[in-house]
């Protein structure tokens, strides 16, 4: 009670509070042992989304794809340095032998490739067994298993001979019979896999380099059952060490990884960028990968700036801290040896019109007027910090069919021309045009972009009624063909313009990926024709023709192709951003002497 008596004096109380605050400050200032950089050969990276598990059959988003392919490998993989993007063998001995009719792909599997050790391999006492062709047949069947409901089934749906029938019998039986043969997945011997397609497809080969098509071992899947997604066992360069998919995943080097080498071919600029010094050397270079989830941009940015992350993108709110008005690194970052790498993304943002709607879907001039009213250079500065290219059509730069000389006649941001088109549509100054229903997401960026669109269209007399939704409700509206307009984006699944043009194919209308429900028999005819053609000048011409058709019909207001700005610390070597970042971390190298 004596101490309390002292406190109950006003002067003493103030002195005690001040002394306590000072002591707390001194105590915390001295406790900063974690604020030193790790001197070990570890690559520190991050994800801006939580990871949904490490089962390849469910790796349908960018982030799960990156994480699963640190552990799992497929028949093919992307070349790391080459652009345009190209494929090369991974677990296949060589690129496949393709039959003359283009339907049969024969792969020889690399010999001596081992799965990572796991207790599921009972016959080898927990030692990883050798990969065989049957593992791929099993892994592909998993995507077709109706009980599994893989979101990646679209890769194989209707493509492989006998696989849909296998799925149907599994549905009828209530359980998949993995020992039942599928005529299109023939295992001639332990090292030979023959994939027979129902029809020739020049895009199919890309699916063989996607995370969902990597090899899993049946024993492991059966050992862990529904928990398989938390027990990944692959053939890749890294294996799992610590696992919390919502916060941090740690991988360590897989000691039984196959002979795997740094590429010897790349772009002309790779040499000057210091990316070719390790050509032909065995990978991986790092001993450990620590991947931390940073959903919020501030901790991601501050951790990068403190050297706790080796590479990072630049959050929108921190752009001015990193990049000058001339789009170069600020002197502060340059002096720290930080590198800036700009890489055009294979994507397109767009505002879709619901083509089944009786107002916007039936009036081409109205859609063109809306497209004409938007000032894209201003939008790019406002919402992308200048990190985007105005999209003229659906095909992004870097793919056959993109032509930088092509200009969309309805993307000038010209109010007078927009008004003229609106008059042509039968709504001079917007008179007689009902308020249009615009569906938007409820996050802050979407709200700001919606306000900008509202303002742009109000300038020509078009009013928008905005309905904001959560992501599930937004999806539901689109899949049920509700609403008149909404904004969306598409990122490439594989480096072929077909992946963008299929978004206008009438058979892909909602609930499929053709969210605008565009339907044009001539476009469909050209699209189907393009599917039968190899990468050639003729196919590129078809792509351009289809692109021009949708530019004229304007089922979308074509938005932008985003440009990614990546930053890396000087100790991170061999770092080159890749649109299909599947298993690429095996090429990264840490110069520990520089990480101080």
């Amino acid at each position, binding site marked *: *009670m004596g101490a*309390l*008596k002292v*406190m*109950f004096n*006003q002067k003493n*109380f*103030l002195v005690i509070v001040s002394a306590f605050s000072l002591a707390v400050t001194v105590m*915390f*200032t001295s*406790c*900063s042992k*974690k*604020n030193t950089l790790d001197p070990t050969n570890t690559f520190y990276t991050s994800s801006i989304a*939580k990871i*949904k*598990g490490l*089962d390849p059959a*469910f790796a*349908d988003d960018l982030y799960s794809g990156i994480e699963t392919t640190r552990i799992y490998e497929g028949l093919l993989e992307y070349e790391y340095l080459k652009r345009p993007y190209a494929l090369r063998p991974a677990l296949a001995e060589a690129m496949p032998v393709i039959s003359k009719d283009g339907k049969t792909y024969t792969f020889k599997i690399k010999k001596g490739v081992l799965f990572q050790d796991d207790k599921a391999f009972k016959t080898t006492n927990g030692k990883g067994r050798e990969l065989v062709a049957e593992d791929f047949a099993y892994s592909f069947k998993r995507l077709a298993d*109706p*009980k599994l*409901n893989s*979101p*990646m*089934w*679209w890769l194989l*749906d209707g493509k492989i001979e006998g696989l849909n029938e296998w799925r149907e019998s599994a549905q009828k039986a209530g359980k998949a019979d993995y020992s039942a043969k599928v005529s299109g997945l023939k295992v001639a011997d332990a090292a030979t896999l023959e994939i027979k397609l129902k029809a020739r497809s020049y895009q199919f080969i890309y699916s063989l380099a996607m995370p969902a098509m990597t090899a899993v071992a049946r024993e492991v899947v059966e050992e862990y059952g*529904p*928990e398989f*997604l*938390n027990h990944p066992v692959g053939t890749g360069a890294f294996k799992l060490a610590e696992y*919390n*998919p*919502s*916060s*941090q995943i740690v991988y360590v080097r897989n000691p039984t990884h196959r002979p795997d080498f740094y590429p010897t071919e790349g772009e002309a600029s790779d040499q000057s960028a210091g990316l070719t010094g390790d050509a032909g050397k065995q990978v991986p270079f790092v001993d450990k990968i620590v991947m*931390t*989830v*940073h*959903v*919020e941009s*501030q*901790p991601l940015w*501050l*951790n990068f*700036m*403190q050297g*706790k992350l080796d590479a990072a993108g630049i959050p929108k709110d921190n752009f001015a801290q990193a990049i000058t008005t001339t789009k170069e690194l600020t002197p502060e970052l340059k002096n720290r040896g930080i590198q800036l790498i700009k890489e055009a993304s294979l994507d397109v943002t767009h505002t879709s019109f619901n083509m089944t709607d009786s107002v916007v879907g039936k009036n081409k001039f109205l859609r063109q007027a809306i497209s004409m009213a938007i000032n894209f250079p201003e939008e790019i500065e406002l919402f992308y910090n200048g990190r985007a290219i105005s999209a003229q059509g659906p095909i992004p730069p870097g793919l056959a069919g993109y032509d930088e000389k092509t200009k969309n006649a309805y993307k000038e941001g010209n109010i007078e021309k927009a008004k003229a088109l609106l008059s042509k549509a039968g709504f001079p100054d917007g008179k007689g045009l009902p308020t249009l229903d615009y569906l938007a997401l409820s996050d802050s960026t979407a709200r700001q972009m919606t306000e900008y669109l509202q303002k742009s269209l109000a300038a020509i007399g078009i009013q928008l009624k905005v309905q904001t939704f*959560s*992501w*599930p*409700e*937004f*999806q*539901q509206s689109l*899949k049920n063909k509700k609403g008149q307009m909404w904004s969306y984006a598409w990122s490439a699944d594989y480096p072929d313009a077909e992946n963008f043009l299929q978004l206008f194919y009438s058979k892909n209308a909602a*609930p*499929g*990926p053709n969210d605008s429900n565009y339907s044009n028999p001539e476009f469909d005819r050209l699209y189907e024709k393009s599917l039968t053609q190899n990468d050639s000048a003729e196919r590129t011409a078809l792509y351009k023709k289809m692109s021009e058709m949708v530019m004229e019909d304007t089922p979308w207001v074509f938005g932008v192709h985003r440009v990614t700005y990546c930053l890396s610390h000087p100790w991170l070597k061999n770092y080159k951003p890749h649109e299909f970042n599947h298993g690429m971390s095996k090429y990264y190298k840490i110069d520990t002497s520089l990480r101080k």
Partner: protein
Amino acid sequence: MGTFLVRRILGSIPIIFGVALVVFILFNIVGGDPALMMVGKHATAQQIADIRREYGLDQPLYVQFFHYLKDIITFDFGRSYATRQKISDMILNGIGPSLSLTLPAFFITTVISVILGLLVSYFRGGIIDRVAVILCVIGMSIPSLGYILFGQYYLAYELRMFPISGYDYSFPGRFEYLVLPMILWLLLSVGYDVRFYRTAMLEETTQDYVRTARAKGLSEPRVFFKHVLKNSMVPIVTNVVLEIPLLILGSFLFETFFGIPGLGSITIDALHNSDLPVIKSMAFVMSLLLIFGNIITDIVYALVDPRVKLK
């Protein structure tokens, strides 16, 4: 006491049923279709139908609701639609990190707030009281995000006093990462709590028994700590005990910014993903926690106030 507990537990059954019904109705009106979230961007009508059949989403609503009730009664939470993780594991794995942050932060905040509340009510009308009230109002006016952004930037990044973010499962290693969020929690909550406790205590200082105690010649600390504090316990207990069970649910903003793998975002993520199994499990857990919190509050009332009898 036994009769009281049985009566309260039985009384909670209709509450849990009501919560389940409201969650189910709301989910089916505004929740979005889980099948569309699961099918991915290359959806086909056939795949959507397959998923609906597989998860029983094609069944009549009353059948779905019956399954819902069965699942919560049997504590069979199942797996998340979005992450396919076992929901009981998601909850159990998240409780530790959430409580590691919220429980000490809440305890420290409460102790400091009660002491400050007592002191400022003692100094009522003086400079300390006025400064404290102004600081409390300022503290309450700053949004939680402001504290987090400021604290993370200046204290962790600029001054390097704390790690920017992260979590260590080892004990007590985790506290190195939790000190900054705890300090920010304290700053965020102390303003509201001190004002609340000050008001509760000031009401007591005007009571006759305080005048009597002073007239008896008791010292001020004794008057405040022995009499005022004891008689202010009912509102304090109401505020404290009701909040304790909810601490298990963590804090969305703190956990998201500081990379703490707790339960803070589990419900919000589930709402974003139309993840009905997680939504219903968390609604059930929250109902249980609230009911539990209310029962404990009533019991503590009886302990601190002899006038309260549990029947």
